[in-house]
């Protein structure tokens, strides 16, 4: 009795799992999910650029996906459902790739932005130190030159005496 109960419970869980997996698969093949995915991909890339980074290869890939989606829409409206599905699958694959690679580009952009600010801030005391040291040395050299000139005059005066 207990074993049967466990088996029944396992069967129900398996069926539930299968239902969820099927539902997810159907959602991911849905044109609506493709529309959401392309906007998500764009948003991810836009954040890369707004952080001061660049990802032209990923933008190019997204543009290829957009072209494929447009071709799929045209094929669909002309009644060529098989070609439309095929083109949508290709577009989905490209968008998935963009979504997978976008976080790395975002990290790179944030890293680059941090480096830019860091080097700019660090450059302030360095420039101040170098310019102040140059001024100080200049003043020292000038005073040394004046002293030498003064000594020279003194020697000449002594000689004349």
């Amino acid at each position: 009795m207990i074993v049967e109960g466990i088996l029944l419970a396992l069967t129900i869980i398996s069926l539930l799992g299968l239902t969820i997996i099927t539902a997810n698969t159907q959602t991911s093949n849905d044109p609506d999910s493709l529309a959401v995915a392309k906007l998500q991909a764009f948003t991810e890339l836009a954040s890369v650029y707004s952080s001061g980074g660049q990802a032209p290869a990923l933008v190019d890939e997204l543009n290829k996906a957009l072209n494929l989606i447009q071709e799929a829409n045209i094929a669909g409206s002309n009644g060529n459902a098989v070609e439309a599905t095929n083109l949508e699958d290709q577009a989905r694959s490209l968008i998935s790739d963009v979504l997978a690679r976008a976080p790395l580009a975002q990290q790179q952009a944030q890293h680059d932005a941090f480096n830019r600010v860091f080097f700019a801030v660090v450059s302030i005391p360095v420039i101040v130190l170098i310019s102040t040291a140059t001024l100080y040395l200049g003043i020292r050299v000038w005073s040394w030159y004046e002293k030498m000139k003064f000594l020279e005059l003194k020697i000449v005066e002594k000689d004349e005496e």
Partner: protein
Amino acid sequence: MRKTKNSWTRESKYILLFALLATITTSSVTYVTLNPPAPERFFATWIVGANGLAEHYFPNDNPNIAVGEQVNWTLGVYNAMSTLEYVVVRVKLLNSTIASPNETAGNPSPVPSLFEFTRVLLPNETWTFPFVWSMLNVTQRGKLTMIGKLSINGNTVNGALTEALLGMNFRFVFELWFYDENLNQFAFSWTTGNTRESAWTQVWFNVAKVVAP
């Protein structure tokens, strides 16, 4: 010794003053470099004729287009928004009585688009693409001429598209829409300062007299 000390104190003052001024100047330059003033943000759209110039829009420079006659234009979009932009060029076919896009209110033309071109544009990118079209079907109903079928870049567009009196003053309107991340939808206009701005362009044409079968 006293003289040297006085001299050093005077020099120190100058050096400290110089260091202070250098710090202020360098900090200001660094701040401006890291936070440059925002440039003017806008999109631009344009159409050129078959030879890539703003002329010869129609075969033999005749704006009366016959059924099946192919017209070659090139559309251009420039992204000066200084950010990555997802844009859609919506192609609409209007006559003279259908409202044009309203730039002041930032409203698009109130008709659905026939065809769309989409692309993600890099900052400062210029995107040009061909727009090759011809009328495949035109019907006459009394004094009204109706375009029923178009070919755009090799794709057929069907339906009762637009009609005009005596086939005069049809126009293609090209509206530039962009994806607004804040609104989570495509928008036709944007705000610069206190003014609404939009990017669209149009070309007028007539349907050459339809010969009754």
